[in-house]
């Protein structure tokens, strides 16, 4: 019973190896991109529309609403990044229904990569919104004494994002693996369902936390009378 996708080796040549994480990530990318292409081939705006288009519209509208509630006024600027994060993590844990599949987010490499994307995106959006000087000045607020603490908090929140997602996904896989050796058949199915639920919640948490960090970085700073968030 492979404990994580990292341990399933599909192909090896020298020291280059394709393990389960990479192959399942590619499969997820393929499914998401081909699915989106197929659904958006004939978009219609009248009352009668295809089922899948309706479903995708529901998802996109809800993500827009959530981003706006977090405090980002023009959600379409951030929809690409945040929506992709949420959809990737959500489908990665949704496909555990398929036998033989191990979620690629159960490997620290994938979650570290996702957390690094957020780490780069926060200053990117912050500088795009506020300009370089204003963004850098936010690091020395409220006093220049806080500069090292602000930097440390940036790094540690990225680390926390990666470890939180990794720990949740890996623990689900590991519990199922251990239970399979103890009580086969019924209990592992219940635990798989629980793993599905926590996977969805963790996808939502990842997206919302990324949105909150970006909102904190792009918040317009009024000079003296600062409104509380």
């Amino acid at each position, binding site marked *: 019973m492979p*404990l994580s996708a990292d341990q399933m080796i599909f192909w090896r040549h020298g020291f280059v190896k394709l393990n389960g994480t990479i192959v399942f990530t590619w499969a997820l990318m393929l499914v998401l991109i081909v699915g989106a292409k197929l659904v958006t081939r004939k978009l219609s705006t009248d009352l009668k529309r295809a089922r899948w288009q309706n479903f995708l519209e529901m998802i996109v509208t809800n993500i827009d609403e959530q981003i706006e509630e977090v405090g980002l006024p023009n959600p379409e600027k951030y929809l690409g990044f945040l929506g992709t994060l949420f959809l990737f993590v959500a489908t990665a844990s949704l496909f555990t229904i398929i036998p033989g599949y191990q979620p690629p987010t159960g490997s620290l490499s994938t979650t570290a990569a996702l957390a690094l994307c957020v780490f780069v995106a926060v200053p990117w959006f912050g500088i795009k919104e506020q300009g370089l000087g204003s963004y850098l000045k936010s690091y020395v607020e409220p006093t220049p004494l806080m500069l090292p603490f602000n930097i440390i908090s940036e790094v540690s929140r990225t680390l*926390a994002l990666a*470890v939180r997602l990794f*720990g949740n996904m*890996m623990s689900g896989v590991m519990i199922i693996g251990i239970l399979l050796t103890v009580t086969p058949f019924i209990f592992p199915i219940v635990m798989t369902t629980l793993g599905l639920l926590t996977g969805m919640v*963790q996808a939502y*948490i990842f997206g*919302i*936390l990324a949105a909150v960090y970006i909102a904190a970085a792009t918040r317009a700073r009024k000079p003296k009378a600062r409104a509380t968030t």
Partner: protein
Amino acid sequence: MDNKTIIAVASIVVAGMTIAVGALGPALAEGKAVATALRSLAQQPDASKTITRTLFVGLAMIESLAIYCFVVSMILIFANPFWK
């Protein structure tokens, strides 16, 4: 007891204690968080979306502490650096 046995015993005992103690604090904190959220939902039901979302984000942050302890105990059992 030779060195290998001492390392094995220490790793296993500490792994068990890590997850046992490490799940205690977050459980208490999450209970308090949910209780406060329920009370504020009862007081202001029309803010339920904000309260629910804030509750989930807060629970995820508290849960990650338990996850850290779990990861440490898993490392001690499965990826122990001092065990050959």
